[in-house]
């Protein structure tokens, strides 16, 4: 029926179709294999990015607790309103709605606009964390695109500025998490050092979204419950901390440490001027921070361990003990103080221009006679002084595991000077070391430790993290009678005629002993001394002497040690006053 020639053409030419069909079908199969077998993982990753939206559930951050267990820094639940500028087409009208509904102050509005300009349009801008439920509900009901309401946590710092450098604060990390815009991390202090303990583990909720980003459900299999962070319990006593801070705040700048001699617990530790981290989140937060950064008194510095000061006359405790232990002096030996001492070709001055006359050890400590200690220092030499200083805890670090930037200070000797100054050690170096000047640098915590060790004759080691274990400090190995001779002198410091007589306390017979100190910030030249040394009032603030006081109480059975340093206070009495106030709080 079919024309033979036509039939033959069909057979011949159909081969091309069969070949072509086979090739094209193979292409499809290979492509399917490529996509579903070889590139499967890549497509799966893309698919997951596509259809899941991971919401990070932030865990509640652990609290920083006081010794009694009450919170110093804690997380509190908040509702946050924030906007994502790129999600709205009309930012201005969105802002107008928010301003009207939340009754925002002009300051807040300015801050929000500043943030909007500063940030990328996809980054959330916080509107507020504190508002009533009614306003929240009203705003939520409007369902305006771009406005988000979420629950979260906000940090509250109960002690405000008192010890802010030590406890630290939290903030949004430089590389903010895209899924958790208000996630915070410890920026300084204990918050930073113990961040991994405090922060806990974040959870996640995996939401399933459709192509337009609308959430259609939740993938329960990928849900992870957040784990709360653990608390950090410190040795800080809130009331003492507050009193210390208030006492320090009477001066422009300073720092103080209060120790429990028996346990080494740091009961209070503060540095001024300070800052209140609660203010960082306010509308004026940025201004506040920049004013703090510009303050020459360095509010962010934890001066108790980062600040190095010549110990001044407080160092005489070290010299006295070293001399007694070496046998170079007896407690009753008297040295004459005419107000100056000429040695070699140099004239060394006592702070008391008219001299103290004949003074023994107790008198020298009571009146803080410089001439006595110049001569004693020279007798025993720098090596004996240094070994006693180290034994009493100077030039050492204690807070390496707890706080950052601890400075060990300097306790010089011959080798140190040759290496660091490049010249030989001379007698003059030993002499001025006798009154805690020259190259010696200590920090406030070390001086408090020194006081605690002298008062207990034990190797007291300070601690900031609470433990219910009472440490068993070793004996220092100093003869108890020598300790007693020095303590007798220190007791007299607060008695009539002593350098801290005006700061004497007596609570049910419990008294305070201690040692004053002033450390020179500048050298007084010969010509200046002849013209008459400038009084404190005549000097610029930052050229005035630091005032120091190390103290302990009660004198009959020492329990607390304290060191207060008042920067550029001129003299030591503000520091002694502050110490007295703190010890009164502890003894009452």
């Amino acid at each position, binding site marked *: *029926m*079919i*024309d*033979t*020639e*036509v039939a033959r*053409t*069909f*057979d011949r*030419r*159909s081969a*091309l*179709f*069969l070949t072509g*069909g086979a090739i*094209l*079908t193979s*292409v*499809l*199969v290979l*492509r*399917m*294999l490529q*996509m*579903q*077998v070889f*590139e*499967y993982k*890549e*497509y*799966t990753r*893309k*698919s*997951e990015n*596509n*259809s899941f939206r991971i919401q990070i559930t932030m865990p509640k951050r652990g609290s920083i607790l006081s010794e009694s267990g009450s919170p110093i820094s804690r997380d509190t639940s908040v509702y946050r309103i924030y906007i994502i500028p790129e999600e709205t087409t009309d930012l201005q009208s969105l802002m107008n709605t928010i301003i009207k509904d939340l009754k925002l102050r002009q300051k807040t509005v300015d801050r929000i606009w500043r943030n909007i300009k500063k940030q990328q349009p996809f980054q959330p801008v916080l509107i507020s964390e504190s508002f009533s439920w009614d306003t929240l509900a009203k705003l939520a009901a409007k369902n305006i695109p771009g406005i988000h309401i979420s629950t979260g946590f906000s940090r509250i710092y109960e002690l405000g500025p008192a010890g802010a450098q030590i406890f630290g604060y939290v903030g949004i990390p430089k590389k903010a998490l895209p899924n958790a815009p208000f996630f915070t991390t410890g920026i300084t202090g204990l918050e930073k050092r113990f961040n991994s303990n405090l922060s806990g583990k974040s959870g996640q909720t995996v939401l*399933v*979204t*459709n*192509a*337009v980003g609308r959430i*259609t459900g939740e993938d329960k299999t990928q849900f992870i419950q957040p784990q709360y962070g653990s608390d950090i319990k410190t040795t800080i006593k809130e009331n003492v901390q507050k009193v210390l801070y208030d006492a320090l705040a009477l001066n422009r700048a300073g720092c103080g440490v209060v120790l429990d001699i028996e346990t080494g617990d740091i009961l209070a530790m503060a540095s001024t001027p300070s800052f209140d981290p609660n203010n960082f989140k306010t509308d004026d937060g940025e201004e506040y921070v920049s004013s703090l950064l510009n303050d020459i008194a360095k509010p962010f510095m934890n001066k108790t361990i980062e600040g190095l000061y010549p110990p001044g006359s407080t160092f005489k405790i070290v010299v006295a003990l070293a001399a007694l232990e070496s046998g170079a002096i007896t407690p009753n030996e008297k040295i004459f103080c005419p107000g100056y001492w000429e040695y070699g070709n140099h004239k060394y001055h006592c702070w008391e221009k008219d001299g103290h006359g004949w003074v023994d050890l107790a008198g020298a400590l009571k009146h803080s006679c410089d001439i006595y200690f110049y001569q004693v220092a020279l007798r025993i030499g720098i090596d004996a002084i240094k070994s006693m200083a180290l034994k009493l805890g100077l030039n050492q670090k204690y807070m390496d595991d707890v706080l950052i930037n601890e400075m060990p200070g300097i306790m010089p000797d011959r080798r140190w000077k040759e290496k660091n100054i490049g010249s030989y050690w001379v007698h003059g170096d030993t002499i001025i070391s006798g009154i805690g000047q020259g190259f010696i640098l200590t920090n406030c915590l070390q001086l408090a430790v020194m006081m605690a060790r002298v008062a207990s004759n034990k190797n007291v080691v300070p601690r900031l993290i609470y433990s219910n274990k009472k440490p068993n400090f070793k004996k220092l190995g100093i003869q108890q009678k020598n300790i007693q001779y020095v303590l007798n002198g220190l007791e007299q410091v607060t008695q009539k005629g002593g350098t801290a007589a005006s700061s004497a306390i007596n609570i049910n017979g419990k008294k305070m002993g201690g040692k004053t100190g002033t450390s020179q910030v500048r050298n007084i030249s010969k010509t200046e001394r002849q013209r008459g040394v400038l009084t404190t009032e005549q000097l610029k603030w930052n050229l005035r002497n630091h005032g120091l006081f190390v103290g302990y109480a009660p004198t009959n059975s020492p329990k607390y040690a304290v060191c207060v340093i008042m920067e550029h206070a001129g003299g030591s009495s503000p520091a002694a006053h502050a110490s007295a106030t703190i010890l009164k709080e502890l003894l009452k």
Partner: protein
Amino acid sequence: MVSTTRVSNANMMSFNEKLSRFSWPLFIPMCIILILSLVVLFSAGGGSWFPFAMSQLLKIIVCMFIFFAVAFSNIKFWIKSAYVWYIIALIMVILVTFIGNVGMGAQRWLSIGFLNIQPSEFIKITLVLALARYFAWKNSVELSQFKNYFVPILMLMIPFVFIFLQPDLGTGISLALITIGMFYIVGANKKWFLIAFILALLAAPAVWYGAMHNYQRDRIITFLNPELDSRGAGYQINQAKIAFGSGGVLGKGYMSGTQSQQSFLPEKQTDFIFTMLGEEFGFLGAFMLLMIYTFIVIILFWAAKKCRNRFGQLICFGFMLNFFIYYFINISMVLGLLPTVGVPLPLMSFGGSSLMSLLFGFGLCQNAQIHKDQQLSSKGF
């Protein structure tokens, strides 16, 4: 020609005789795909008969009546009316270009009451019918003369121009390929194809700048460089590739395709249904479907080869071409091998026009099979 089979008159064939000649190897795979389409559409509806699966089931039932009516009718009816069907489809194509509704910028449809008809689906099968009718009674001498191809070229070009203007690139190309294939198999001179190819190349720039719509150009540019615009014109194909690729070997499981179920995949029930199949049933599912298609093509080819009359042969061969081009373009498109041109997946995609034209085509092939031993004259006697 050897004639051992008893040749009966077409007019005299009993229903039982027809039934005995019915091609089950062609019918069964077709039904398997139709059932599979319901399974996938059930998933596309989010695990529901609505809005797709039930509607498609009703369409299948209606189209099955057409299929059987065509399959068991007298072949002479189709010889006589071949051009009529073609002209009806052509008129609808012309009508739709001027008064049709546009959806998604692709195929147009005519609304007749509650029916939405896409004439571009019908023109493909009626063109096959008309070409078969035209070439069936030409002898080898006539088939080697170029003048005998003028009419078929017009048969292609008239609907082609209108469909291209709609603008429905996929159907236009399908029509051209079907016609070229038919020309080749009937024995057109090979040089003509070369000349046509050169002419097409020369015309390409004019078409690119003159006749193509912006979105068509976008699609082709996107196809050549899909990463260029993954949210705009490339969005669809990127999402489709992600869905398909993430299916893996075994798939994400029935009704668990994250891409399809969460509406990342546009047109998942129509042009991109293969992607959904690939996502939920994996390579295994997609490969199996492709093999069923291939099986149908082989059966159709075999039917064409075994036809003792030229008309039935060309019907089967033309429909085979149509069917192969249909699914090849669709699958290549969703796998990112070709630009998205808007061609449904035969027997799988949701929609009545495509289904009806396909079942009409399958009906014609069955009819050709039933009458494969008939001697037929061009007059239909």
